[in-house]
């Protein structure tokens, strides 16, 4: 017991004091910026393993990008990945980063349903569903709740049953074998409820996008409340995105 207390004191405070301002160490591939430099655009488009880069204007779709960074390595004068981890947004077009764009990725407040801040700001319980991914986003979602990121302090938690949840977080490209369990889980969540897509695999299918083993029909039926890009998502990307989604907003602002 005494030894336990000693360890507790010795470990001290481990949490990140302000998750909205924390800086990530070393090289991190967060929100990219694309300069107006003239390069062989076709080479750039062909290079991308997931067709996330399009021409005229040069644009990276963060919903497709798997953040391998190869484009920035071969064309450093054109593309640079910044350390800005705030990449989550609530509309699909918000994930498009175009040539010359320097601005941060934000949520569109007008598109957030009124009941979200009314019911969920201060307390949001989520049920996570893996559907054909590689377990990397699951590792990072678990990390969101560890003593370092400590998402629980904002009242955001993952719960065991969909019946206790306010929404679901989907990871993975959504495959045929999980299509039905995902639907059953979603149906079991009481209204009002939200859907969050965590990771590039969930948003677009990622590297698996054209696999015949997928069945993404579920996504066509519902409005997605938050897109969190990353391969995997960084805990700070997820936490900041969710905080933005559920923060209290004055009507009409």
């Amino acid at each position, binding site marked *: 017991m005494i030894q*336990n207390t000693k*360890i507790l004191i*010795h*470990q001290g405070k*481990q949490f990140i004091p302000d998750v909205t301002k924390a800086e*990530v*160490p*070393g*090289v991190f*591939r967060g929100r990219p910026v694309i300069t107006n430099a003239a390069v062989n655009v076709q080479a750039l488009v062909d*290079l991308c*393993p*997931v067709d996330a880069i399009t021409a005229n204007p040069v644009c990276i779709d963060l919903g497709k990008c*798997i*953040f*391998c*960074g*190869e484009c920035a*390595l071969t064309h450093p004068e054109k593309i640079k*990945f910044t350390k800005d981890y705030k990449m989550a947004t609530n509309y699909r077009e918000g994930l498009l980063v175009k040539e010359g764009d320097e601005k941060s990725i934000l949520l569109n407040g007008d598109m957030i349903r009124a009941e979200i801040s009314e019911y969920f700001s201060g307390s949001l319980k989520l*049920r*996570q*569903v*893996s*559907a*054909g*991914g*590689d*377990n*990397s*986003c*699951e*590792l990072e979602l*678990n*990390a969101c709740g*560890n*003593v*370092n990121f400590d998402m629980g302090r904002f009242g955001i938690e*993952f719960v*065991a*049953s*969909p019946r206790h949840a306010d929404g679901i977080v989907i990871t*993975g*490209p959504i*495959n*045929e*074998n*999980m299509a039905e*369990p995902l639907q059953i*889980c979603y149906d079991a969540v009481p209204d009002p409820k939200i859907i969050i897509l965590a990771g590039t695999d969930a948003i677009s299918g990622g*590297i*698996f996008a*054209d*696999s*015949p*083993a*997928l069945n993404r029909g579920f996504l066509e039926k519902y409005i997605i409340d938050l897109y969190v890009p990353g*391969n*995997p998502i*960084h805990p700070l990307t997820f936490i900041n995105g969710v905080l933005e989604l559920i923060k209290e907003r004055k009507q009409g602002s």
Partner: protein
Amino acid sequence: MTNYFTILNNQTIPILAIPVLNYDEFLELNTKLVQKKEFHCVNYYGFITDSRIKLICCIANDKEQNVYISSAEIEKNLRSVSSFTARHLSFHIFERELHENFEIDYRDHPWLKPVRYAFNRRIPQDKIENYPFYQIHSEELHEVGVGPIHAGIIEPGHFRFICNGEQILHLEIQLGYQHRGIEELFLSKKKLLQRTVLAESIAGDTVAGHTIAFVNVWESLCGFNAAEDLLFARTLALEMERIAVHTGDLSAICTDIAYQLGSSVFGRLRTPVINFLQEWCGNRLSKGLIRAGKNNFRFTRDLAQRLTGLLDAYEPDFMEMYNEMKTLPTVLARLEKTGVVTHQQAESIGVVGMAARASGIHRDIRSSHPWGLFTQINHESVIKNHGDVYSRTQIRKEEILQSIRYIRQSLQNIHQENKQIIELRRPEPDSFSISLVEGWRGEICHCAVTDNNGELLHYKIKDPSMHNWLALALSVRNNEISDFPICNKSFDLSYCGHDL
């Protein structure tokens, strides 16, 4: 004339060099080999070629440091084939896969059930929701079904328990919920970068392990010899991954026995390790780091210094926590004699990796089939003999300390970056190549076959979980059902690596 061809880890041979046996001879050879202690099956699979099924069996010889490769060709729709499994259980999962993919009808396989309901399975009418579970009809017994969606943030899979009161009599594990057709994508995606990204997405907790297996196979096919700086970076990434996941697992084991302090401290100790990977390559799980023929992220002296500092801070904190944990009777009571896999069981079903070593089996690719820096390290495996959750906990601790020693040792001598970038040649045509890597969970095996243009004809991935899921099912027998989570965590098997 021998009826097999012996090759080394990461060696490429002409496909024609592999003897093609008739099926009975093939069966006799391989099932006889594995009766000896030093042999075990690292991969056994099939693919369609010229409208016949080509079977390739890879049996590792741990003493000679090589792999015995043999093959057979059988007709499609062949009925009533004798199974390898009837002679040695370790083949069971491979034959289940062959049955599911090619409808090979084994007459004496004891458990011929679907493996993963792959999209290209031979009988598409078989649906994952209609899996044929083993049942016992009795008024005393009851069934407990869990999943595919579980209580925590983990991957999907279904567990069906048959219990007598609180006691588990039988557990059947049904997988396939993470299936996304990754092996087929290796063939349909033609760019090397795409395939590398696929290798990084086989199992997110084993990014380094699987990507190293892929680049080793690829470089071997292209006749490329990786320079010391590449081997150094790969070995370092592999051992960092081992430290990170083992630490995370110790945290999870503490969580499952409600030991909050251990859960928090081990959890927080994992953070700087994976953050270091990000500092090095921009991704906490080392995605982007390992590339065939090159390294995009140089390991600088500055990083070496940071890593030394990190390990200096990690080690005493880790030992303080571990030493405290192992003195607590409430912790030990939950771990000791829980979830036992006996040596004999482990041998018979062909368990690999850390779980095998916890049951007294000397099975470790780092010493038996070393590649890269492991040829210089002279690695000695950590072996435990009780086969219980505590053995698997102790192994993690000792392997973490061992990896730290290896890293410190290798940091003494950082290799100068080899700036000369050599373009990779096209892969050798009509060839076969195999790569074995000891990931934190156990041996990873990738096998590639090329066609006459040097294009991939077939790519086979084996995650160690393929062997070990059955070990988990056996370990929980006669345990209380409340001990299932801790047993499960002590193996920490991969769903996505199995389901592919």
